């Protein structure tokens, strides 16, 4: 019996010979020092060309993981995410998770406008995203909106598209910008805004454009990038830069503390802050450069009036402001 089993095993082993051996692919994989793991919340159309150019210039292989900003930041916070660099996310989000990032002052920092820099260099600005008003030029032929005040004007009551600040990051930035630009009593201003919204709130800033171009709303608040892309895609909308001034919050990139490839991550930040990438931002990505030495294309006005947006206050007061918002929404019966 035992002898027979042994024979059987031998035959099976013999017949297993001559297996097609798989090619050893390890030779094609990059060395450890030629790798970079990037988490990004940007769309592929933004990060892909940049990352490919980075790869070609440096020979570093970038492994990209995409998801929502908050999700990615929470993964980084949870530790052991394998992430070297977080690309994307507004300045407020990156600041909130500042403890998980390593300070880095890039080689290009002298060219970056100071107003976009993080005080302690925990993250590096990539592009600036001004908040703008948009309206439907077919429906609004005379007296187009001029600024934040228009959102409180009863003439527009029920015709305004705004992303819910409790859900959307850009919606929250829009409300903060409005409050800071107009000044005065926070509660009173908010109450007037909510009254004027008349119950219309978008779940996402992306829905603002669609609603206005369909004519369901006449004007709305969104980011300049979103509006410019929509115009390029053929949507019939017009942009208004508020006369009271607006905010231009930068988004950025940050190196994860204790990551495996900090040198490559630093190279990447230098690359995206470099003139080659920054000068392509406006033309290819509808974003504003954070550098002072980059000229804007014709369709982007040079001298947009900016308020001195208090990011600290916006970040610290978020919970209180949203509570107030919910309370006022309740009062107006919504």
């Amino acid at each position, binding site marked *: *019996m035992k002898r*027979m089993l042994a024979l*059987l095993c031998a*035959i*099976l082993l013999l*017949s*297993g010979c*001559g*297996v*097609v051996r*798989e*090619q050893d*692919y*390890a*030779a*094609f*994989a*990059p060395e450890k020092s030629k*790798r970079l793991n990037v988490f990004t919340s940007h769309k592929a159309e933004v990060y892909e060309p940049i990352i*490919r*150019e980075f*790869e*070609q*210039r440096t*020979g*570093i*292989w*970038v*492994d990209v993981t995409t998801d929502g900003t908050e999700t990615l930041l929470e993964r980084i916070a949870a530790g052991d995410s394998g992430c070297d660099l977080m690309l994307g996310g507004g300045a407020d989000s990156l600041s909130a998770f500042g403890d998980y990032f390593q300070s880095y002052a890039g080689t290009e920092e002298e060219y970056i406008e100071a107003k976009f820099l993080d005080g302690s260099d925990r993250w590096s600005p990539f592009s600036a995203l001004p908040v703008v008003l948009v309206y439907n030029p077919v429906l609004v032929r005379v007296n187009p909106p001029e600024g934040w005040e228009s959102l409180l004007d009863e003439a527009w009551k029920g015709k305004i598209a705004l992303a819910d600040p409790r859900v959307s990051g850009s919606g929250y930035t829009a409300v903060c910008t409005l409050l800071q630009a107009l000044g005065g009593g926070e509660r009173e201003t908010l109450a007037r805004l909510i009254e004027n919204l008349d119950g219309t709130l978008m779940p996402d800033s992306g829905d603002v454009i669609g609603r206005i171009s369909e004519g369901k709303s006449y004007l709305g608040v969104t980011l300049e990038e979103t509006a410019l892309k929509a115009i390029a895609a053929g949507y019939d909308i017009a942009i208004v830069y508020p006369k009271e001034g607006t905010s231009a919050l930068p988004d950025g990139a940050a190196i994860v503390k204790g990551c495996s490839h900090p040198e490559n991550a630093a190279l990447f930040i230098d690359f995206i802050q470099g*003139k*080659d990438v920054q*000068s*392509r931002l406006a033309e290819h990505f509808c974003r504003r450069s954070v550098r002072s030495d980059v000229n804007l294309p014709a369709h982007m006005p040079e001298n947009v009036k900016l308020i001195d947006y208090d990011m600290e206050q916006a970040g610290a007061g978020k919970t209180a402001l949203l509570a107030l918002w919910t309370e006022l929404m309740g009062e107006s019966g919504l």
Partner: protein
Amino acid sequence: MMDWIRRSFRNRIFMTVLLVTLVPLLLCDVFMMQMVVRRSENGLDLQARQEMEGLFRSLDTALGEIGSPIGELCDSTVVRSALRRDGEDSRLLYQLLYQKTSGARPYASFDIYDTEGRCHYSTDAGQTDRDMDTGWGLLYAAGNRQALVYGTDEEGGLALAQAVRTREGTILGYVAARMNRDSISALIPQVLSSGNDFILLDGAWRMLFSSRGLQAREDVQALRTQLLRGESLSGGGQYRYYARLHEASGFTLLLRQSKVYTPQVMDSLYAICALMGILCLLLSLLTALALSRYLAKPVKDLDEAMGQVEKGRLDVQLESDRKDEMGRLTASFNRMTREYRQNLARSVQRERELNETRLSMFQAQLNPHFLYNTLDSMKWMGVTNHVPQVAAMATDLASLLRAGVSGEKLIPLEEELELLERYLDIQQLRFADSFTCETDIPEQFQHCLVPKLVLQPLVENAIIHGVADREDGYIKLSGRSEGEDLILSVQDNGRGIPEEIMDCLNAPGKEIPGGHLGLNNVGRIVRLYYGEGYGIRAERGTDGGSIIQLRLPIQKKEGERA
């Protein structure tokens, strides 16, 4: 398991059949599968390697044919001076351009750019707006390297470029060549077999071109992730990948081959094998069961019958209508038991005959007529001499002797009792009336036939071993029926029979030690006449003494009914 197999002949046959059917089948299964799979995979592997070689060569040739005129153009003074003096000598330059690129133009277009990336000269007249960014992509790379650079153009084709420099190294412009998707595709069909895909990757494994078009992008992304994680590209999936690096360009050629034996196919193959195995297992189980039963049943039956015979049951016969060895063996067994039975009957018969002969011989040893005449003379002498006891004794003895030598074997019970009376008369004289004997046999048994002189030894035993040395000896002879049998019992009030003799008496076939020939003989004679169920039994009386019982069938003379 081994014990179970060894325990029975049938289990052995069963296991053997099972092994003999299953093992070759499984071996065949495994061999065939392995052979077919290996051969096919080796064939495919060879094919893929050849195709890869072909692809590599045609790509290498194409890139070489495109690359060399670019190099020559960059080194040409005509191009340098044209770029320096912006627009002049265009006729001469075009002449040079067409002449140098004549070999490569079927699949590539050539352009010459100035330092700003504006296209000044092109072999592709139809195409407008060919300007390129010198701060990005291909021209940036060309400006930063002294050699030919490889990349993509905006439409997803391949592009090669080199900077035109002065002898001091200042960049004057760029020469670039583009190879669109159709041209790349044109390289492939000659070598690629259907089902295989060709993918061209850049140095960081981003897809440049795929024979399947853009659908392959996600696959390439997944492959790249696998590569970065150090996982195998081909393992487990539907495809096998062959990769080869083109050193000059830094491109990687990837050949994707559909596996014939994907895990699913292998699974179904294994499933079929398993199914066949189960079918054969069932079949061999049935066969093994049937065969082992067919072979082992007669053996088992014989084994059991043999056990019966050992226990003494000689009438065992086995049924079998088989004509083979097993049938003959069964028949032999039947014959053997039958003959054994007959032999036994014959030897019993012989024993009986021997006994009778022995008896006749005993009887013949003394001439009965001489004894009889002597006793008659003694009787008359007793009468003449007035000794009546001698006369009576001689008369009784003569009667007993006559009965003993007469040819009758069975006599009616009344005659037997008459003879017993004679015997008792003699014994009364001998023992001077020290005992009494009472006879109580119902009238209906008087005519029953009994072997002659069977009661005399019983009474003699009661006298000699029971009451001989007593003053008040008492012997009772009684008879009763028990079903078809007649029970005659002789009871005495003597010393009783010793234990060991009692045991011997009650165990038929055992000789009683130390005499008692009479009782032995009675028992044997009765058994010889009537069979094993009959004979004598001894037991202890209630008030001492012993009871000897004689069991006989009730039998009467012909013409008389029981």
